[in-house]
Every structure is written in structure tokens, then in C-alpha cells.
């Protein structure tokens, strides 16, 4: 009897081992990455060991004490980089872009600032592993369309609930009323576009007037707990922007709109402004620099916004803004293609930004813009262990990622794309069954 139970236990243990070997999961632990080249971003290039303990970078250097029981990975010939941050995407908010019911970034209504992108992040979206195995560990997920579509959230691409993924930063999103066309399918007349812009600008001013008033009354009301507050989620969300508690990220792209948006935020004395998109930033780079507004631009792999523009205007845009003194981070503005962030950065680098600035534009600069540079964006002791080990320059197309750590979790280099490769490279049957 005892033997039988023992046998059963052994069998179950074996079965569990086999099963767990089949499904690789992110796991925590103490990890040492030895003999590595370490691109710290903020402290130059170092050689030696990077130690991960309790989810944080515990040590970096040539003489690191490795505690007993540490899992060690020899990284000879390999380079460690901080995880790349995509400054704007819909990863986790969109599963199949043409199937509307799988899209959670576009709520009905022009003014819906109370919408929380974090709520709708699907931690099990197929694009999440696909994106992170390319070294993109962190992304701002952004609600879209309308004037005030909601609040964007910074997430790490690991975790089983949105709160586990949350990386500590939110920004309010506003789409500046645009006078441009959205693409070949946009067949509105010029007059209709003009009317729509005027209508939207009026709505924008009204809602910010209301929000300012609401914030004023609300602040006064907070001093008197006996006052009952009305349920007004839109205004409660916007009051955070008025009070400077939440940054306002304004999507703005054409040169005319950028200039108007700068004037608008200055007139309203709004604080903590970020511009996103900024496709024609190169045309008004000095004005943006003078206003001191940081920029999240992209995609870089994009067509010129005017037929008369230089063919490489979008490739050159981040470099031109950077040279003018604008703080520039990069984004893909995509869901399934967010893994192309390093390639967008590579093109930005080649067409004038330079490799170093482009690397900063996907690491420390977005971390600074989102106010999380104490936690991420570079390899420094005490920061979150969000990093990857690669065969070289992560922008270079053929570079492979060997090890991946996100928020301290060693994350398997696995995704549906890799699984399909493994299954179908040499199919079980040829043409004959």
C-alpha cells in the first residue's frame, strides 16, 4: 500500500515535471549575468557581472559577490541592455485590428477622460510575448480617437493581471483637433474638415474651462467634508490634469497644429505637457524646443505627410528635433507591430539621430518623460531588473535576444511565432501521410 502511494506520488511528480517543462513561465530568483558587456545608458559601457536580486539590479561591476544558490548565466560575447520602452502602443488593447470587438482602445464619445486603458489590457494577448522577445519590455498603452479618449498607462509586458503589469505611470490623452486627413479612406470635404476642427476646438476649450472650474470648486469642497460631491467622472479625471497631478499627452502632428497646441497650453498655463505623434516636428523643432515640451514621436517607418516633402522626412524627424534641443522618445503606435520598435529606432539613428541618442530615446528618455526614471530606463543598482541580453546592437536586424528579464522575472524567449516555427520548420508529415 505504502509502495503504491509512493509510486503514485513519484508518477505525479514526474508528470508535473514533464508538464512544467513543456510550458515555460516567467520566474523570479537570484540571477547573475557574468562576463557581459553592460550598456548602462547612464554610466557608459561596463564589463563584468550584473546581479539580479529581489527583482532589482543588486550589483553591476567587475568584482561582484555572487551569493550562494545564484543561478548564473555566462554572457561572454553578449551585451546587456535595459528593456526598451515603447512610448505609445495598443499592445494588449487590440487583438485583431480588423475585428472591432477585439479592439478596446476606442470608446464611444468625444470626451471620455475617465476611460482607463489599464482596465482593458489583456495580459494574455498573443502580441505580448511576441513583442517582449524582441527586447521591448515596457509600453505605454494608449486609448485613441475622440478629443479626450482616456488615460494611458505604462505597463511591463509580464504579469497575469493589469495591476501586476502596471509600471507606475499614467498620462491623460488628448487628441488636438486636427485639420489633416487620416488616410486614403478619408474623403471628407475641406469645408467639413474645417467645420469639424472649429467644433472640436470649441469643445476642447469648453471642457477645459469646465474642468478648471470643477477643480476649483472641488478643492474648496474638500475642505468641508459635509458637502456631498456629485458623480462627475469626466471632470474628476480632468481635474487631475488641471492640478498637475497627471501629465497631459497631446497627440498633434501637422506643423500648424503643433504651433497652435503650443500656444494653447501656454495660454492655459497647463503643466506637465507631453506631445505625441509630432510627425511634422522637424518643421517647427525650434518652437517645440523653446516651449520645453518633451515629444514621443513615431512610427518612424512612415511616409512623408505631404507629397512635396523629402522622401525621408519621417526617418529624419526624430534626429532633427533632437538636434534642435527637443527631448525625444520613440513609439510604434501599433499593437502587433510594436516589436518593430528597435527597427524604428535604427532608422531614426541612421537618418541623423545617431545610435546613442536613439538608444536613449527608447530607454531613459521615455522613463524620464513618464517620471519613472528612478525605476527603469537604464542599468543602475537599485533599479528594476527590466533588461535583456543580446548578441549585440538590439537595433541591428539579425541580433538575437538570449535572455530576458522583466520587472525581475526571467521571461522565456517564447511566443506563438516561435512555437509555430518549431512545429512547422520540419513538419511531421511531408506531402505523403
Amino acid at each position, binding site marked *: 500500500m505504502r509502495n503504491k502511494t509512493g509510486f503514485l506520488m513519484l508518477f505525479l511528480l514526474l508528470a508535473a515535471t514533464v508538464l512544467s517543462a513543456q510550458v515555460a513561465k516567467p520566474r523570479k530568483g537570484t540571477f547573475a549575468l557574468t562576463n557581459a558587456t553592460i550598456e548602462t545608458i547612464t554610466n557608459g559601457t561596463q564589463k563584468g557581472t550584473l546581479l539580479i536580486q529581489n527583482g532589482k539590479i543588486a550589483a553591476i561591476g567587475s568584482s561582484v559577490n555572487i551569493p550562494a544558490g545564484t543561478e548564473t548565466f555566462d554572457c561572454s560575447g553578449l551585451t546587456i541592455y535595459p528593456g526598451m520602452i515603447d512610448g505609445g502602443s495598443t499592445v494588449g488593447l487590440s*487583438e*485583431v*485590428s*480588423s475585428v472591432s470587438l477585439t479592439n478596446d482602445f476606442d470608446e464611444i464619445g468625444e470626451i471620455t477622460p475617465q476611460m482607463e486603458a489599464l482596465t482593458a489590457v489583456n495580459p494574455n494577448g*498573443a*502580441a505580448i510575448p511576441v513583442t517582449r522577445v524582441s527586447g521591448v519590455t515596457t509600453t505605454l498603452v494608449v486609448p485613441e480617437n475622440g478629443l479626450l479618449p482616456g488615460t494611458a498607462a505604462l505597463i511591463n509586458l509580464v504579469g497575469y493581471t493589469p495591476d501586476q503589469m502596471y509600471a507606475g505611470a499614467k498620462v491623460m490623452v488628448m487628441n488636438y483637433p486636427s*485639420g*489633416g*486627413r*487620416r*488616410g*486614403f*479612406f*478619408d*474623403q471628407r470635404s*475641406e469645408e467639413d474638415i474645417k467645420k469639424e476642427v472649429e467644433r472640436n476646438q470649441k469643445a476642447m476649450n469648453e471642457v477645459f474651462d469646465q474642468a478648471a472650474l470643477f477643480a476649483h470648486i472641488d478643492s474648496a469642497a474638500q475642505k468641508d467634508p459635509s458637502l456631498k460631491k456629485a458623480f462627475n467622472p469626466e471632470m474628476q479625471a480632468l481635474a487631475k490634469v488641471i492640478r498637475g497631478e497627471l501629465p497631459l499627452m497631446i497627440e498633434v*502632428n*501637422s*506643423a*500648424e497644429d503643433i504651433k497652435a497646441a503650443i500656444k494653447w497650453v501656454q495660454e492655459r498655463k497647463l503643466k506637465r505637457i507631453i506631445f505625441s505623434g509630432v*510627425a*511634422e516636428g522637424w518643421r517647427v523643432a525650434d518652437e517645440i524646443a523653446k516651449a520645453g515640451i518633451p515629444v514621443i514621436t513615431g*512610427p518612424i*517607418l*512612415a*511616409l512623408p*505627410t*505631404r*507629397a*512635396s*516633402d*523629402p*522622401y525621408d522626412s519621417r526617418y529624419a524627424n526624430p534626429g532633427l528635433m533632437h538636434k534642435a534641443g527637443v527631448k525625444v522618445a520613440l513609439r510604434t*503606435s501599433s*499593437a*502587433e*507591430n510594436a*516589436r*518593430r520598435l528597435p*527597427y524604428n529606432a*535604427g*532608422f531614426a*539613428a*541612421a*537618418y541623423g539621430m545617431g545610435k546613442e541618442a536613439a538608444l536613449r530615446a527608447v530607454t531613459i528618455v521615455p522613463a524620464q518623460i513618464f517620471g519613472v526614471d528612478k525605476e527603469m530606463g537604464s542599468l543602475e543598482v537599485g533599479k528594476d531588473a527590466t533588461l535583456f541580453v543580446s548578441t549585440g546592437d538590439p*537595433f*541591428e*536586424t*539579425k541580433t*538575437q535576444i538570449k535572455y530576458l528579464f522583466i520587472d525581475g522575472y526571467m521571461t522565456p524567449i517564447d511566443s*506563438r*511565432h*516561435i512555437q*509555430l*516555427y518549431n512545429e*512547422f*520548420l520540419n*513538419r511531421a508529415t*511531408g*506531402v505523403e501521410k
Partner: protein
Amino acid sequence: MKNSLLLLSFLLLGVWSFAQPRTGSILLKNGNVLTVTKGALQNTDVLIVNGKFTQIGKNIVAPAGTKVVDVTGKFVMPGIIDAHSHIAIDAVNEGTAPVTAEVWVGDALDPLDISIYRALAGGVTSVHTMHGSANAIGGQCETIKLRYGSYNPEDLRMEGAPRTIKFALGENPMRSHGEGRGIQPRTRMGVEQVIRKAFAEAKDYDAAWAKYHAEKASNPRALPPVYNRRLETVADILKGNIIIHCHSYRADEIYMLLNVCRDFGVKKLCFQHVNEGFKVAPELADFGAGASVFADWWAYKFEVYYSTAYNAAILTRNGVVTSINSDDAELMRHLYHEAAKSQHFGDLSDDEALALITINPAKQLGVENRIGSIEVGKEGDVAVFDQHPLSVYAIPQLTIVDGIIRFDRQNDKKDMRLEVDPAQPIPAFNMEDHEHVDRCMQGTEDLWYYLFDH
């Protein structure tokens, strides 16, 4: 006198602008020459005379008067070929019936399209510009050379290139006709039957004409069948005069068309997009069908949800002639980078990766004896890069079509439009870089609004 001189100069100008030379001569000195088919040659000269490669080697002396360009330290590769594009045409979809074989995008060529110049700036020299994917059997396509600068649509055609036609399986024809109009096909079963019916009718049509031609000598009263351009074209497919380029995604529909073509004896077949081609790679290889894929586009619609970016590598390793295409005026500008992705998602060699955008698309378009590699006797289409073209940092410097420089980064005039369009909307600002839109469905916008906005 003054007036007549003016008139004469106008006339001469007119003659000059309508009869621009299509071929030229140029010597590229001392480059790293990536021939694709004959390996990489260091410190090598390439001579193009009257539009053809005449010599590849060291210390070549150019005929007097030939333009010489020093390309020391630079990389010289064959002009890039895009096997799937919709640039340089005014119309994409004749989405009015499930079979529209009678139409031809070659009737709607637009030599003024700025996309042509932008593609040249990405090292592209030849393009398969295609009908859209609204119909199971769409219109005929056109293989063009990017001779930007001419106002004459005829100058774009790659004279003598085989005829090609667009087919489409799956969601697009199902959506356009089944969902949009309530007629077959609404399912992948229906798509098969639409194609089988067209093939069968064309076979009968062709037999009727053969019967008439046989009879008319002996019987002056023999009546010819009613001429039908649609069936005439489909009959040409059955006779092997037209290569099928079939928009497709799912493995089952790809397999279906292989079976249909086998039943009708059709052999010239290349699948486009073919995101799930990797699942039936042995079947594709066995048939001898080509596959023209995206490097890593996926999940923009349900039928590409189960894709893998390793598609090109799996197909190549299984012996399928594979190319990487753009279907997009932006992506088209960096096909060299798309090809390099086969070294990230897979482990293709430099030659294998470059073949995906040169000799392989040339094979799929039936022009591999003319373009797609740097070989003596072939047409002088070249892209010159400052770094190896498979590096993300490579910037195209010079693009040459038939021996004529059509793009030179050093002499880029910023505004390269041939003509200012007076109907262009003001402001001219236009953004369309959000997500992958299925460009194959261009021209069916009414239907889009019907389906998605109502």
C-alpha cells in the same frame, strides 16, 4: 523670326520630353558587389552599356563618354523587385463582380505617382503593380520599371514581361461579395466554386472557338461564339499564358487552389501574402508554386492571427521559391530591411535573404532571365548602399534603372513631384501610418463604410 525660334525650341522640348531615353551607360568603380546568384565580389567594377550589364570584374575601362561613379566602400546589389504593390495606378479594385478577369491595371498607369520616387529611394527598380483582392478572380496586373521622370505611362511598362492576374481567397472576396452584396462567395467553399465555374466556362468558351476555327474553312456559314473578354482572359490562364498571383492567407484555402489548378492543368501559380504558407510548405514545394510573403505583418485581420514571422525562413528551407513584398507604399521603401528580418526570424544566409527581394520575385514574375541578379547580359538595374543592405543602418545612395540613375541621395531635390496637382486638398497634410490597412481593398471604401460604420 524670334517667334519661330521659340516655336522650334518648344517643339524640340516637346520631342525631348516625350522621347526620353530608357537606357543608359554607367561604370560603377570598385564596389562590394552582391550579385546574389554568383556570390559577393569585393573591389569589383560593374559596367552597364545601353541598359545592360556588359562586364563585371576588376579594372574595367569604360567606353569613352561613359559616366563613371566611384563606389569604393559601398555595396552594389541588383535593383530590388517588389512582387506585390499598388503604386503607380489610378484604380485598384473593380469590385463589382466575383470574377473580373477582363480588367487590367495596365490601363490605369500613373507615371506621376510620388510613390515611384519614394520606392526608388529605397533601392526598388521593378514593381508588380496589382489589381486588388475584392474578387476571387480579379483583374490583370502589370510589371513595371520605375522610370520616374517620364510623363508617359507607356514608359513604365516592362516590355515583354509575362502577363499576370490577381486572384483572391478568404475574407476579402467573402466580405466584398457575400457580406457586402449577398452573392457568392460568402465562404471559402464558395470561393472554390466561383473559381471552378470560371475555369469550366472558359474551357467551354475556348472549345467553342476551337470548333469554330476548325469549321469555318469548310463551312462559310459557321457562326463564331460571342466574344467575351472575361472568358478569353481566363482561357489564357488555362493555356499557361498568364501567371496567377493569388492573395491568400489560410493553409486550407491555399491547398484548395493547388487542387483546383491541378484539376485544370494550371501550373503557373504564385501565392501572395500566404501568411499560413508555412503550414503547407511541402505541398507548395511539390506543386512548384511560389510564395510572396510579408516579413512580419500579422494580426491585422483574423485570417492572419495564426501567422509567424518565420514564414519566409520555413518556406525557403522547404524548397519553396519565396519572396518578400510590400503591398504598401511605405514598407516598399525598406524591402532590404524586410529581407534582413529573415536572419532574425530564421537563419537565412545573406544570399538567401537578398534573393527574397531580387532573383526570387523575378522568378515569380517570369522575368528571372532579365532582372534579379548582377550578371552579364541582364538589365542594368542596381541599388547602391553605404553599408551592407541587410544592416538596419544602410541608406540607399543610388538607384539605377536600365543604366540610368533615377535616384541619387546626393542630388535629391526634396520636392520630387513631377507635377503639382491643382486638385490637391489644402492643407496637404495627410497621415495614414497608423496600422496596416489592407491596401488590397483600396477602391472598395463604400463597402467599408457599409460594413464598419453602419
